[in-house]
């Protein structure tokens, strides 16, 4: 499928990546090239095939008891934050 400018704009919004208007055409062309190549998968008959969703097929889901094993390290959690304020992550105002 060939992607148009509007689709790229929408996907970029979903992905929270600003793509300048001037780069939309070039981005659309590159991504369309990749998608066209990917679409050869439609040749493969996958009727009655269960999807493989993980990296292994032979590992059972593991369980552990639901206990708090960690915590109490707010200073470490905030140490790399671009805008740490009074024990919180600072962000632009979201509530008017």
């Amino acid at each position, binding site marked *: 499928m060939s992607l148009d400018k509007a689709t790229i704009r929408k996907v970029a919004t979903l992905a929270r990546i600003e793509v300048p208007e001037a780069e939309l055409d070039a981005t659309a062309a590159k991504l369309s090239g990749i998608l066209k190549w990917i679409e050869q998968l439609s040749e493969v008959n996958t009727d009655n095939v269960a999807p493989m969703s993980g990296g292994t097929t032979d590992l059972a889901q593991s369980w552990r008891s639901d206990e708090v094993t960690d915590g109490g390290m707010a200073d470490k959690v905030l*140490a790399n934050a671009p805008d740490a304020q009074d024990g919180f992550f600072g962000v632009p105002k979201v509530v008017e």
Partner: protein
Amino acid sequence: MTSLTSLTIAEARDQLAKKEFTALELTEAHLQAMEKAKGLNAFITPTADIARARAKESDARLQSGKAGALEGIPLGIKDLFCTEGVQTTAASHILEGFKPPYESTVSQKLRDAGSVMLGKLNLDEFAMGSSNMSSYFGPVKNPWKAKGRSDDLVPGGSSGGSAAAVSGYLAMGATGTDTGGSIRQPASFCGIVGVKPTYGRCSRWGIVAFASSLDQAGPMTRSVRDAAIMLKAMCGHDPMDSTSSPRTVPDFEAVLGQGVKGLRIGIPKEYRPDGLNSEVAALWDKGIQWLKDAGATTVDISLPHTKYALPTYYIVAPAEASSNLARYDGVRFGQRVDGKSLDDMYAKTRAAGFGTEVKRRILIGTYVLSAGYYDAYYLKAQKVRALISKDFADAFEKVDAIVTPTAPTAAFGMNDKQDDPVAMYLNDVFTVPASLAGIPGASVPGGLTSEGLPLGLQVLTNRWDEETMFRVCQTLEEAAAFPSLKAPS
């Protein structure tokens, strides 16, 4: 006396035990080599002070008889592994300055085994690439050059800094990570051994995530024995990663020397497409003959869905990446670019922080997961992935190991045209199928092209059967007279 940097891990281990030199002397020799070879740009963050401090601790443990399996061995750590208090960037601007407050399980295990961290190694940004050209911190040079030519070649990727450091004698070994070939392809380009174990052998905790159902850590070394030693120290169940296997980790080194007599080696016809590079094909034939000479039998096999592996990978990996990389939002860590709203801040931060290839993959991943396209792309790819995995399962009913070329070419030039993403993706045509199936794979240097550049052979085995893989690798290494493959100094 041979220089300390030219020893293998096994040799250094034995000589340290005999006190022929100290861990500090061994580390100093490598720090000097790193200083001299700065031009390769293999390291993003050298950690000389940490290395010296840990080497001294190693010497104390060697003195008191408490040496670990890798005591005093200087290693490089790919800058995708979080290291406590040491900048960890994933070669991305968005993580510049990030100092993790914790250590990845694999790097902690290597530290517990007594190894010495020399520094953090360069890579393609977020491990997305096959040339190391996409690093925000600049490309890495391959220590090898073509005969009679002076132009610089790529080391492959994404573990390009790891491969260059080991090949260029700056580190005795290095960690790599492999999502679609990122250990094996650079190992082939740089003439070293690279091992991607079975998915689930190594904990992924603390490794910057790219595609979680594919990512695996592994060793990159100058000998098969060294890879076996290092891998054992890296593996094992970790409560912090529920996909890490509770299986007992075998002593991989113990199987070395068993040879391949009686083993059945599969040769998949799909790995010999029309137009396969003739030198790559010739080396493959040579490898097959070496294994026959050593008593193995070869079996022609078919892995019918091979040609669909790359397109499958370029749905699955970007989809997982788009989700994993959502965490880089300018709030909790890394770089931030201010904006007029929260969403604007996210979009500006991510536009400025990610490089071109990373953005491209996030956009593709977002698209294939978006409403209306999920079934056509993502679900379809997961089904084809199941068929690719089944191809291997069927093959391993008939054979013990599969041998193929690692990469379709030798290392290419840093200045070669690289503006077609799909052409770049083809570098991983032989490595991606095993990644999708979650089976172990290794690359061993097999020989040189007529231009004098290394080419690797790939060995694949069934899940959890790294032992057979190491046996085949060692037979190939011996036949190829691997020690003669030294990077020209």
